[in-house]
C-alpha cells in the first residue's frame, strides 16, 4: 500500500464528513418530526383525536397484529400491486416491441397513446367497477391503467433511440429485423426497462390504492377509506405509514435488481 498524500487524505476526510452530515440530518428529521408530533399531541397543543400520535399508531398496529388482520390487508395490497406491476412490465415490453416492429402501427396509434397517457387515470376507476365489478380484477386493472401508457411510450422511445449504426451492423452481418431486436434493441434497452420499473412500482401502488378506495373489502386503501368514515384516525394514519414502508420496500427491491444487473455487467 502506498502512502496517501495529505491533500488526498483531507479530501477523503471531507467526503466522509459530507456523507455523515447527510445521513445524520435525515435521521434527525425523522425523529424530530416524531418527537414534535408526540409531544404536541400529549400536551394538548394538537388534538390527538384528529391528528393521532406516534405512540397511538404503534399501539393500534400492535392491536391489529394480534388478530393478524393487518397482515391480511397488507398482503392483499402487496399482491395486487405486484401483479399489476408485473403485468404492466410484460405488456409494455410486448407493446413496445410491436410498435417498434411495425412503424406504421406506431405512427397510427401515436395520438391515441398520447391522449390515453395524459388522461387522469383515476377517472377510469368508476368505469372499471361498472364494467368488471367490485373485485380484485378491477383493482389490478386500475393499478395497471395508471402506469401502462406512459411505460409503453417511454419504452418505445428508448427502442427507437438505439444507435441506428448498431442496427446497421446487424444487417451487414446478414441479420434480420428479429436479430436487430434480440441482439441490439432489447439488450441496449435493459437500463431503460429497469428505469420504467422504478417509476412503475410507485405508480401501480397509486392505482391499486385508488381502486381499493372504490371497490374493495380489504387492503390498505380500503382500511384508509373505512377508518376515515368511522373516524378512526389511528387506523388511518397507521395505514398511511404502512404504505410509506411498502413503497420504500418495493423501491428498494427494484434498486437491488438494478445493482445486481450492473454487477453482472461489470463483474
Amino acid at each position, binding site marked *: 500500500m502506498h502512502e496517501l498524500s495529505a491533500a488526498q487524505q483531507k479530501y477523503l476526510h471531507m467526503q466522509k464528513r459530507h456523507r455523515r452530515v447527510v445521513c445524520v440530518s435525515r435521521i434527525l428529521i425523522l425523529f424530530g418530526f416524531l418527537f414534535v408530533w408526540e409531544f404536541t399531541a400529549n400536551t394538548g397543543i394538537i388534538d390527538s383525536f384528529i391528528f393521532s400520535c406516534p405512540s397511538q399508531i404503534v399501539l393500534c398496529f400492535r392491536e391489529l397484529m394480534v388478530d393478524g388482520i393487518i397482515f391480511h390487508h397488507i398482503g392483499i395490497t402487496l399482491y395486487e400491486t405486484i401483479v399489476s406491476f408485473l403485468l404492466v412490465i410484460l405488456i409494455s415490453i410486448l407493446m413496445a416491441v410491436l410498435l417498434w416492429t411495425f412503424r406504421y402501427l406506431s405512427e397510427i396509434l401515436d395520438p391515441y397513446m398520447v391522449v390515453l397517457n395524459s388522461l387522469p387515470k383515476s377517472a377510469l376507476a368508476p368505469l372499471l367497477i361498472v364494467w368488471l365489478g367490485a373485485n380484485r380484477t378491477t383493482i389490478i386493472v386500475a393499478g395497471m391503467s395508471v402506469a401502462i401508457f406512459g411505460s409503453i411510450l417511454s419504452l418505445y422511445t428508448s427502442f427507437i433511440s438505439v444507435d441506428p449504426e*448498431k442496427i*446497421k451492423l446487424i444487417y451487414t*452481418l446478414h441479420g434480420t429485423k428479429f436479430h436487430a431486436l434480440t441482439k441490439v434493441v432489447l439488450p*441496449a434497452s435493459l437500463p431503460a426497462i429497469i428505469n420504467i420499473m422504478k417509476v412503475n412500482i410507485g405508480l401501480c401502488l397509486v392505482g391499486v390504492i385508488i381502486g381499493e378506495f372504490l371497490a374493495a373489502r380489504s387492503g390498505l386503501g380500503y382500511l384508509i377509506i373505512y377508518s376515515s368514515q368511522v373516524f378512526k384516525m389511528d387506523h388511518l394514519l397507521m395505514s398511511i405509514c404502512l404504505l410509506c414502508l411498502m413503497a420504500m420496500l418495493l423501491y428498494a427491491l427494484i434498486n437491488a435488481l438494478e445493482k445486481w444487473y450492473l454487477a453482472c*455487467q461489470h463483474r
Partner: protein
Amino acid sequence: MEKHTDRILELKSIYYSYHNADGETPAITDLSFSVNESEFIAIVGPSGCGKSTLLSLISGLITPEKGLIKINGRSLRESAANIGYMLQHDQLFEWRTIYHNVLLGLEIQHTLSARTREKAHELLDTYGLKQFENSRPSELSGGMRQRAALVRTLILEPDILLLDEPFSALDYQTRLRVGDDIGQILKKEKKTAILVTHDLSEAISLADRIIILTSRPATVHQTVPLIFNLEDDTPLNRRNAQEFKNYFSLIWKELNSDA
C-alpha cells in the same frame, strides 16, 4: 461474352438517389468499376459524394435504382458470396465481452459450433486480443477495439471486405498504427478489400489501386494503379517512399480538378 475469371466484383452503370419531400438527390450516376480477386481498392472522393452509399449498395443493404452488381459473375441477389462490412465505428456491444462480440455474426448466421468457437479463440490470439477475451469493449483502446471489430468480420470468412473509413474515429497516431496493422493482416490473408476514405495518405499507403470519384452525384473520375518499388511493401514504408509524394500530388490534383 468476355470471361474474367479473376474478376470478383463488377459494378455496371449504377444509379442511386435519395428521396425526400423536398425532392430527389441523385447520389450516384452511371458508376462502373470492377475489382479483381485479392485486390485492395481504395475509393476516395470529395466529402458527401456518396462513398458510403456505394458500400451499402455493394453489401446489398440497399438496391440500386438502375444498373447491375455482379459477384463472381452472378448478380448480387443470387450469389451466395459473403460480404464483410466494417463500419466507421467498431460498434462493439458493451453488454457483451470481446469474445461474445466476435461471435455475433456466427450467432446471426447460425454457424456457431465447437469448430467456429475454436476459430474465434485462434483469431483473437493471432491478433493479440487473447488476454482481452473476457473484457468489455470499454476496457480496450481504440486500436484494440478496431482489431476486435476486424476479427468479428473476418471470422465469417468474407469473400469481399468493405471498409467504411474504419480508422477515422481513431486519433492520428493510433490511426497510422492500426492502418498499418490491419493493412498487413488483409494482405497476409489475401483478402479482396474495398476501402472508402477521405484520407488520401491512408488510401495511398494501403491500396493496390485508387478509384477517384467526382462530387455528388458520384461517378468514376479516374482510376490510379499504385506501384511501389519496395522490398518490404508495408503501409508505413510506403509513406516514406519517393512514389508516395508523387501519387499524393497527382490524386490531390485530380480530386480538385473536378471542383
